[in-house]
């Protein structure tokens, strides 16, 4: 009987080693309709997150892995006021964003004069040379303070794994969150894409209680971690939540995900962030 068992085991191993393969294939996808893309970000804390990026879509197999930038557009952001149930935008408060770094990074529009204010509404207007335009509205919610941040080292594994959790108070408002983590010694982010981990947190069900966050992926002893906790509006949350699904789409049972844009005339988002930043070094006192 023993030889039968050995045979079965060997066959099993052989079977597993055979399984699941892949190969490159050629796919013919017809040309697509080009669309505008906008990524507009404002906040009340740091000028590094105040920018508007304009680009277009590319055919899927287009031989380019760069941002297909849109140059020479007129970009304005206007701070508004909420009076009763009305939101008013005065052209006097209009600030132009200009592509200062066009020669190095085309498509990025910045304004050193712009400062976001928590609680204020904002309007985005983009006018392209070809007559197309993009508009959008957002507001900057009040930022949250991180009430506690704890970390610990995995037992008997002091040189390797560190974990942390933190919480903040979630009020009665519809405060959704976007959380970005950045590991490294530099305390600044030059654009949200510089982060190393991204989370969107829904606030549709949780109110008036501490909001916990636990990170399952480990850090190392002595790592520096910068935490950017941003409060965002509902429509902005819906965009970033759908973006998370769209950007991580793949695998055998993936279904097409379309982002839920909160701007008109383009794919993308105009997001106001009520931003809190905190840094921590994972080190024993």
């Amino acid at each position, binding site marked *: 009987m023993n030889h039968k068992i050995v045979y*079965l085991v060997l*066959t*099993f191993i*052989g079977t*597993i080693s*055979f*399984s699941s*393969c892949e190969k*490159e*294939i*050629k796919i013919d*996808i017809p040309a*697509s*309709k*080009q*669309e505008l*893309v906008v*990524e507009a970000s404002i906040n009340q804390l740091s000028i590094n997150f105040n920018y508007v*990026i304009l680009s*277009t*879509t*590319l055919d*899927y*197999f287009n*031989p*380019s*892995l760069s*941002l297909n930038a849109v140059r020479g557009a007129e970009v304005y952001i206007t701070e508004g006021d909420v009076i009763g149930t009305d939101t008013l935008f005065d052209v006097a408060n209009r600030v132009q964003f200009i592509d200062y770094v066009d020669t190095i*990074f085309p498509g990025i529009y910045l304004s050193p004069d712009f400062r976001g204010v928590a609680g204020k509404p904002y309007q985005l207007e983009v006018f392209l040379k070809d007559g197309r335009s993009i508009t959008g509205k957002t507001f900057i919610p009040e930022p949250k303070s991180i009430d506690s941040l*704890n970390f610990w080292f*995995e037992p008997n594994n002091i040189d390797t*794994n560190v*974990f942390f959790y933190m*919480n903040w108070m979630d009020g009665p408002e519809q405060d959704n969150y976007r959380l970005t983590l950045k590991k490294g010694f*530099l305390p*600044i982010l*030059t*654009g*949200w*894409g*510089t982060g190393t981990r991204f989370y969107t947190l829904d606030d*549709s*069900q949780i109110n008036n*209680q*501490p909001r*916990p966050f*636990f990170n*399952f992926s*480990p850090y190392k002893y002595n790592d520096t971690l910068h935490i950017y906790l941003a409060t965002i509006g*509902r*429509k902005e949350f*819906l965009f970033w939540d759908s973006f998370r699904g*769209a950007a991580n789409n*793949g695998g*055998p*049972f993936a*279904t*097409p*995900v379309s982002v839920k844009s909160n701007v008109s005339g383009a*794919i993308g988002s105009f997001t106001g962030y009520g931003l809190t930043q905190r840094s921590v070094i994972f080190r024993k006192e």
Partner: protein
Amino acid sequence: MFLNFPKIIVSLASFLIVNSLFGQNIFISGYVKDSTNGETLIGATIKNKESTAGTVTNSYGYFSLSVPPNTTQLVCSYVGYQSKIIQLKGLKLFNLQVALIPENREVKELIIKSDRLDKNVKSTEMSRIELSGEKLKSLPVVFGEPDVLKAITLMPGIKSGGEASTGFYVRGGGPDQNLILMDEAVVYNPSHLFGFLSVFNSDAVKGIEVIKGGMPANYGGRLSSILNVNMREGNNQNFKYSGGIGLISSRLTAEGPLQKGKSSFLISGRRTYIDVLARPFIPNDLAGNSYYFYDLNLKLNFILGEKDRLFVSGYFGRDILDFKSPTNRAVNFNLGWGNSTATLRWNHVFSPKLFSNTSIVFNRYELFNDFKFGAGGFSVRSGLVDWNIKSDFTWSPHAKHQIKYGFNYTFHTFTPGILSGSVGTTSINEKINKQYANEYALYISDEWGVNQRFSLNYGLRAVAFQLIGPYTQNEFDNDTGLPTGKTKEYSTGQTIAFYPRLEPRLNLNYLINEVSSIKASYTQTYQFLHLATTSGAQFPLDLWVPSSRLIKPQMARQYALGYFRNLKQNQYETSAEIYYKPMLNQIEFRPGANLFFNQNLENEMVFGEGLSYGLELFLRKKEGKFNGWIGYTWSRTTRQFDELNNGKPYFYRYDRTHDFSILLSYQINKKWASNFVFVYGTGNATTLPDSRYAYRFGIDPQTGEPLFVFVDRYSDVNSYRLPAYHRADVSFTYLSKQTKKYESSWNFSIYNIYNRANPYFIYFLPDIESQTVKAYMVYLFPILPSVQWNFKF
């Protein structure tokens, strides 16, 4: 839509009674069984030898036949058994016990029966296929594991969801539109191993029946098909043990009489040992991870007397996945799911003219998920529980009429999700409100042999679905999806939604001559339960959701027309069927919908229509040394949703223009038997991105390089076709030892003999060197040999 049910039923019953009149014939009733083990035989033919009148045994092996008083002989036949001539003189005509002797292998090779089965030509049934448990076990299989759900996809009109899926698609319907019954208990999730295998242990399966159209009135609840899996009853003559050792699992079955000839038991278990076999090869950092499944079938069968039989059957199965993080030993993930069913059935023969079965069925599908980490943990529970009672009566008032009527009541409890746990000092308790529902059905049908050539089966099924309280209905804003804070409370038993519906059924058969007929059928069905899934396969995390105020019942009409012809003394069955099937209130989910733990799941749904039509050709040789079938389907299946694909119709994911399958079995000699399978199917329709854009921009402060991710953009739904699916398999069964008391055999299979790379999925990766995106196709099973050892003593 809601008509006066009682009035209609009474009118129909009156019509049937008046129509039936009183005949002069005598009635003979009884059971047909296997002479060696006492197992009843389903679908055995009983005929009056002096005429063409006949009937077949029902799913309990029972028959009732009306014959003229001067009848002297009956003939009973069944595939794989020697036909038997029954001399009626001196016999008691009530509770006749017909024991058929199985053909042994030598006889099987040589005998060509003169009196072949011609049920497929003469009955009003169409779009129906049966397969025995023995046949299932002989087919070529992956990992040496015979599988019911893989086998039925070799039949025309039934399409596989793919190699890693037990989901099947019948005439354009989704996998949730098939009613899967195991001894009358609904199986909500029929898969093990994330869809690679089904929950049906081949040792415990007596046979299966698939009804894909012309659905009789005693079935309902799903739009597309019925898969009836009948489990064996157990040997009531001798104690027997059987089992098998395969590459990934082993099976063991024990059966025997509790009281010889009167009662029996069967217990059958199966467990995978992937976890045990793989353990020595798993690296240390992954030690502690395991996956396994097991299932257990139990059946008790009691003959209480001439008129009563009692069956108790149960199933319990679980899949367990344990995961320990290699980077953090404190992180532990435990996922489990499974079905539990229990069925109590009571057969009662009131008279040779009236047979009844009453069943009480409990079934539960549950998912449990425990997640622990250093600072706390979560526990998630979800599932569905049904309590069901049903009674079915078969009444034969006249030689030309067989009337079936009955009722069915189910109480459903849906538990979409309960989450409890803690992070640090913060505790979290959330739950999606439970839902409760009553589902009722009342039906009546008449099988009417109008004359020698024309027969029909007409019936009506009245169904109703009632979603009831207690329930707290949260209101949500349509634009933002946010709760408005308003709720509506429903008290216990209070109706939230009520859907009464009528389902007329009609099957016609015109016998052109003794070997050919034309059949037509019309079926209208409603479905009140819907599977919440965004993928084409069925997963353990998928939820069943009931019809509600917003979610209307799905509905389908199916028209089918077929030509049936038997050749060479019924050795060969051939058929050609066309069908046309419009479907209403079909459900899809918005792209990117979040289905897990979503209080507002209804808001993620979109509703539309479906249409399927096609032609199915089938040639089958049921017996002899060389047997098998060839099936071909040409079909088209589309969906149309106002909110998807800009409102334009699109191909359903499993639309398959051409689908072709061959199964050939050949008994080489006394020791060796072989099977060959070939399948071909047009590639699945899928949605691929047509453009992309860069987003979430940043500039690396150290290198100055831009950072972003590419996001895919989609336009037309399912406008791309994956490459065609085709493969050939062979299997050989070697009977290594056969004595009166002991039998052992080996089954050797080679799956995908010409190593076809069939698409599982496609993914894309940016290639820095060529500065473009490349497409890759993943395929699962290349050529795969497997072996299984089976024994019986």
